[in-house]
């Protein structure tokens, strides 16, 4: 991989730091009136999701990380690994570990496309689409006519996620959920 100097650190650039692939979040060039310049850099560790802050001397460089985001459909889990398939027509499959899946596990639904991040061809993280439609598998019975009132109740969805929904929602209904906030949006 190519090396990137601090000048080229743009948001989204993938680099290696301390052995882990990271994405540049922010890069601030700081220089005293006279003297050495530095770059104050925020990076997201793509393995852990944690954001690091680091200072570099301007002109230092980091090795690029061979990281790619690919669209893949979720297929199934064998209990140990979660299997995804590329949507580019190649039918190529990738097995994803629980650790890489993280919180996305509770938003999994077959045949829905997810963004799978590969590092050196290994899946290191999976992100769900911003909105997803899931069926309610368990919730208290709906209150008839109560469509305008406030108030909410928990509902368990087919993917295993539990979200707060309005009181009028019934078991078996399909809902649109914002996966970023984990909030109910509407009936699908």
């Amino acid at each position, binding site marked *: 991989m190519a090396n990137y100097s601090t*000048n080229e650190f743009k948001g989204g650039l993938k680099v290696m730091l301390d052995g882990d692939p990271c994405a540049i979040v922010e*890069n*601030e*060039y*700081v*220089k*005293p*009136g*006279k*003297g*050495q*310049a*530095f770059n*104050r850099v925020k990076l997201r560790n793509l393995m852990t999701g944690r954001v*690091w*802050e*680091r*200072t*570099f*001397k*301007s*002109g230092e460089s980091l090795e690029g990380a061979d990281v790619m985001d690919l669209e893949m459909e979720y297929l199934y889990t064998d209990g140990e690994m979660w299997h995804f398939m590329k949507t580019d027509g190649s039918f190529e499959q990738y097995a994803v570990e629980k650790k890489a899946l993280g919180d996305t596990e509770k938003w999994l639904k077959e045949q829905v496309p997810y963004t799978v991040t590969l590092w050196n061809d290994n899946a290191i993280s999976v992100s769900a689409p911003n909105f997803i439609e899931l069926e309610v598998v368990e919730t208290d019975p709906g209150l008839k006519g109560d469509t305008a009132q406030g108030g909410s109740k928990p509902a368990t969805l087919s993917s295993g996620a539990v979200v707060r929904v309005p009181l009028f929602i019934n078991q078996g209904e399909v809902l649109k959920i914002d996966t970023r906030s984990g909030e109910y949006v509407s009936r699908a």
Partner: protein
Amino acid sequence: MTTNWQPTASIETLRQRARLLAKARAFFHARDVLEVETPVLGRGGSTDVHLVSLSTQARTERGQRRLWLQTSPEFHMKRLLAAGSGPIFQLARSFRDGEVGARHNIEFTMLEWYRPGFDLDALIEETTQLVTALLPRAPGPVVRHRYRELFHTHLHIDPFNASLDGLRALAAERGQMPLSTLEVESRETCLDLLMSLVIEPQLGQGELSVVVDYPARQAALARRHLDGEGDWVASRFELYVDGIELANGYHELTDAREQRERFDEDNEERRRLGLSEVDADQALIAALEHGMPEGAGVALGMDRLIQLALGKARLEEVLAFATPHC
């Protein structure tokens, strides 16, 4: 893909920019300071280890020559002073390679002026008047800080006497960088890091901060003198508003021999660091040998002052076509 041809500043911003430039010119005209224009290209470049000069090749009447894009108009303006120009100012395009960020652009406008007969105090006074005149709201009282005191207040160390190991450990901690990357770094690098990361953001908040008495090693082209504690310091000031460094002024060095020594030291340091050497400006040395009047001079980042005056987050928003959209 279509090529993005649009300016990085809005036309309205460029109108406001023009008004501020006119105001700056009026400020100097009212004080009888002559506006000059000096070349962007020069035979010599800046040897300053922390500046990266751009250069180009030109076919001149003396054949193919390497010419340096000036990092500030300083050398040419000092030659004018030596030739008897009297007080002068310039809005000069200047170039510093690799300086890219929210407050930096490789090509930028420097407002630089020289005042024969002024001492540092008189120039600080004039600089704060100019800045106050150009900002839409008064930036607050002018407060002086000594470099040493800033380190005492914000970091509880003495920048002149702290051990090198202690400075490296503190810089690594505050910079969130592994100590190993600072292993070979000098006192100045550690101090620069602490100044930039810890102290600068605190400066110019509700006041116009003027920093004085920098360590002598950071003198650049300023004179040196002994301070009350018996340490050599630079006769130099910097001015801050809102955590942003706006200006850098010197009681100017006029001694040709010392100037030559500083150029040589810079190039020696460049060799040590594996940086390419820069042609020292022999014409400046010759001008100083002829004699330059005693006085003070200051360089002010005009784009930055405009950025502050107009409340823009990024420098490119006040430049018609910021690099690399040029």
